């Protein structure tokens, strides 16, 4: 029937069960995983001039990951029962649920990240390489699993796609690199007493290189988003409505305005335009924009995905 001839008179209330705190949780684990990966690349890269980056990432990663699950505890209706998740007894946990393997990763990853940070700071290169290699799959899966939480939420058309885990990991890399750039800039500007001019200049070169890396990952992220949107527009009716919400509806400002324009396109231009790409101010602005953009991405996926009515 022509939709203009249908009127809803009565229905039970619609709910958005997973709220903004869950989006924030995804955001923080993403930051953690992204900065850990950058740190490990710097440590395994071998060259001594990369070492400072490795050190920054080694601190940022466990810090973000300790903050992240707090959001979950506040969000849960029964936070005092959270320990039920950690019994690991076959009859008490459900191995099919992504939350279950997430809890295991959330236990293992911070421990390995802290041990890694310890060895990086005590200068034990051999052991830090060992824990870097252990940490990489953990870091990727700790964020990848949040993509599975979203992807296995079968009722929501925006979520239930095979692209979600990859999209989450790539956007985690984007925000993690941006955070690393910010931390490296702060270190370069405020904590460089007693260093020679050449050392500071070398440090800056490193930051500019990181900016280029950020640009490359943003391009990949934009490509994945394009994939997701094109499929949404041609898939089921629910998917079409999800695309409607994101592209010209309720969440278009968050998605097109903040995530795509402010958080991807403008920073992309800034990290490749020579003037801004080789200035610390320009890179600071680009990184802050990227971090705001990824926050908007988590928000529009979590909240926007649940905003298509199901009954």
């Amino acid at each position: 029937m022509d939709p203009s001839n249908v009127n809803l008179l009565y229905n039970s209330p619609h709910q958005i069960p997973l709220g903004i705190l869950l989006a924030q949780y995804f955001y923080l684990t993403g930051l953690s995983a992204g900065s850990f990966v950058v740190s490990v690349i710097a440590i395994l890269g071998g060259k001594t001039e990369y070492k400072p980056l490795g050190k920054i990432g080694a601190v940022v990663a466990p810090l973000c990951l300790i903050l992240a699950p707090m959001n979950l505890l506040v969000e849960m209706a029964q936070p005092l029962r959270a320990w039920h998740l950690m019994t690991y007894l076959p009859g008490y946990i459900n191995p099919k649920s992504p939350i279950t393997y997430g809890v295991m990763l959330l236990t293992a990853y911070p421990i390995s990240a802290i041990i890694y940070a310890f060895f990086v700071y005590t200068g034990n290169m051999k052991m830090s390489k060992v824990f870097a290699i252990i940490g990489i799959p953990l870091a990727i899966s700790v964020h990848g699993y949040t993509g599975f939480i979203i992807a296995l939420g079968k009722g929501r058309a925006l979520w239930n796609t095979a692209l979600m885990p990859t999209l989450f990991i790539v956007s985690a890399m984007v925000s993690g690199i941006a955070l690393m750039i910010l931390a490296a800039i702060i270190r370069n500007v405020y904590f460089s007493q007693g260093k020679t001019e050449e050392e500071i200049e070398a440090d800056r070169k490193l930051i500019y290189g990181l900016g280029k890396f950020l640009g490359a990952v943003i391009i990949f992220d934009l490509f994945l988003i394009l994939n997701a949107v094109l499929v949404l527009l041609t898939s089921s009716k629910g998917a079409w409505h999800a695309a409607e919400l994101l592209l010209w509806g309720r969440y278009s400002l968050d998605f097109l305005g903040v995530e795509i324009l402010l958080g991807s396109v403008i920073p992309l231009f800034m990290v490749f335009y020579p003037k801004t790409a080789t200035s610390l101010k320009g890179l600071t602005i680009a990184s802050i924009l990227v971090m705001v953009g990824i926050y908007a991405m988590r928000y529009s996926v979590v909240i926007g995905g649940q905003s298509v009515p199901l009954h």
Partner: protein
Amino acid sequence: MPEKSSPIAPADDEKRKTRYAMVIDLRHCVGCHSCSVACKSENEVPLGKFRSWVKVIEKGRYPDVSRQFLPSLCNNCANPICNRNCPVRATYIRPDGIVGVNQHRCIGCMYCMASCPYDVRYINPLRKIVQKCFFCDHRVDKGLEPACVETCLGKARIFGDINDPNSEIAQVMSTNPVVTLKPDLGTEPHVFYIAADYDAMDPTSGVDINFILFEEPY
């Protein structure tokens, strides 16, 4: 050699598995909402929350208009995503097919609410755990019908064991065209509708999705 079971002569009655289900015959539904009321009083459903409710739409242009009803409840799916996604096994499937929630195990993570394709679960704001329709299993276990079925004045709701060929529900289902909501999702819902309206079954029909009001979960 074991005899082959045929649809006419059912197999050994002892071994037959019970599978509870509900048929809602909309030709008999008058949209009186007494099922919603009965459910609320039977299960102490808090204010503003529903385990069973009747969605009502209006369609057409004057003078060719009608009201269509869609009594809605948990479908007690045979392949429920809520059960698959519950991390602590709080959501369970009984051998007779009823999907329940263990009130002492639920940690309130709300993942089941986010994954259920029918949005039939809610958080009880007083007890802070997830609840939903479970075909009044406390009544069924005592040999009674669910409260909504007993109260339905048009006898639109039929409840029973679909694997028992002598039950009313099995006979109604064998002799009428039945549909379920969103069969394409593979959840195998076990609430069947006769003469359900296309637009009433469509969650986005008759609403502007940009202006839907949402409720806090609790």
